[in-house]
């Protein structure tokens, strides 16, 4: 039997160290698997593997020890069950997500809904280099969006309605970044320090802090691997209904600027984040992202995370 390894990889069948064995990669949709899917995976692991699954770092599950002669049978069974297989190689990978606003008390955006939409549009698309996308509902960044080639972080902009403010100072206490100080009994905010979490909004007893813009911060250029880097912000407050369009713009910018063998992180390191942002050209981006002070939000202080290893 001749084996087309590239074709196999596209469908989530990975070569195993042991000759004639494969690892079959499944993906979840934005991190959720139904109890039925879990039972089906358990049955497949018993039938074709060694009775276990390996849980991946990208919210998937892999069944190792699948024999080469079972390939067709298993593939047919997976198709009949409607299970989602993963992919590997130079493609857009499973879009991962935190639980998000649906259930998380900190969530600002419906990260899972967004991830499912992105997965539907981008999963498996052939790209020059592997490309990973992650979505987090708030700046706590539990889905590690800054470590992905493209990352989305839910954010909200606090706006003070001064006449409602009772001057209690609670917002100053709840801000984890000391962005708010009380001046003459009223809060003032240092926008450069604000990480857009909205603790001031959710805590304010008199609703003096209100929501301004709400949306996603769009990061590009994160990766782990042998030379880890953190992504940097290329667009701010992307609304839920423009997420696909904005990710498409990042991929387009990458396509225009990249050289062979580069991931987005490498391209940004070579051309600079300003040139990359200019190519993405997301309307509504604030000029302070280009010229403003270095702060943790724009991520402009992040270069190589660690020293080059290996």
């Amino acid at each position: 039997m001749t084996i087309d390894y590239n074709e196999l990889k596209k469908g989530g069948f990975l070569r195993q160290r042991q000759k004639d064995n494969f690892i079959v990669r499944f993906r979840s949709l934005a991190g959720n698997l139904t109890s039925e899917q879990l039972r089906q995976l358990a049955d497949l692991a018993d039938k074709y593997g060694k009775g276990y699954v390996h849980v991946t770092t990208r919210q998937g599950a892999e069944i190792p020890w699948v024999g080469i002669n079972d390939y067709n049978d298993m593939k047919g069974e997976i198709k009949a069950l409607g299970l989602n297989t993963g992919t590997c190689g130079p493609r857009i990978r499973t879009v991962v997500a935190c639980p998000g606003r649906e259930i998380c008390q900190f969530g600002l955006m419906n990260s899972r809904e967004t991830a499912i939409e992105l997965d539907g549009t981008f999963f498996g698309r052939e790209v020059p280099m592997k490309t990973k996308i992650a979505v987090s509902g708030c700046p706590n960044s539990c889905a590690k969006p800054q470590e992905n080639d493209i990352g989305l972080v839910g954010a909200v902009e606090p706006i003070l309605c001064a006449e409602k403010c009772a001057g209690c100072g609670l917002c100053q206490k709840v801000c984890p970044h000391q962005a708010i100080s009380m001046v003459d009994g009223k809060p003032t905010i240092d926008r450069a320090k604000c990480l857009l979490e909205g603790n001031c909004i959710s805590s304010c007893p008199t609703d003096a802090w209100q929501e301004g813009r709400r949306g996603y911060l769009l990061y590009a250029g994160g990766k782990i691997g042998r030379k880890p880097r953190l992504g940097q912000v290329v667009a701010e407050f992307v609304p839920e209904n423009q997420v696909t369009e904005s990710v498409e713009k990042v991929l387009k910018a990458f396509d225009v600027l990249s050289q062979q063998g580069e991931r987005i992180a490498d391209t940004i390191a070579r051309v600079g984040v300003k040139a990359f942002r200019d190519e993405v050209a997301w309307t509504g981006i604030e000029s302070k992202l280009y010229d403003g002070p270095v702060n943790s939000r724009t991520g402009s202080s992040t270069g190589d995370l660690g020293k080059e290893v290996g």
Partner: protein
Amino acid sequence: MENLKIDAELDITADVCPITFVKTKLKLEQMQRGEILEVVLNDGEPIQNVPRSVKGEGHKIILVEKRGENYRLLIERGE
């Protein structure tokens, strides 16, 4: 503000998260809509989280006041 009738009092200065909020929530559940609960809590993590959680559950915070090392909250029970 100080003329408000306080219907119940709670001291959570000996507790840590999430018991701080759990105790506050349980206390509020025993009260009637519109009644006032006074809560004394620590600086740091409790003052950062308890008011937000209380507001998120639909109650109204009517006073936040520093009292020595601690904070004092007045909460009006919501729906």
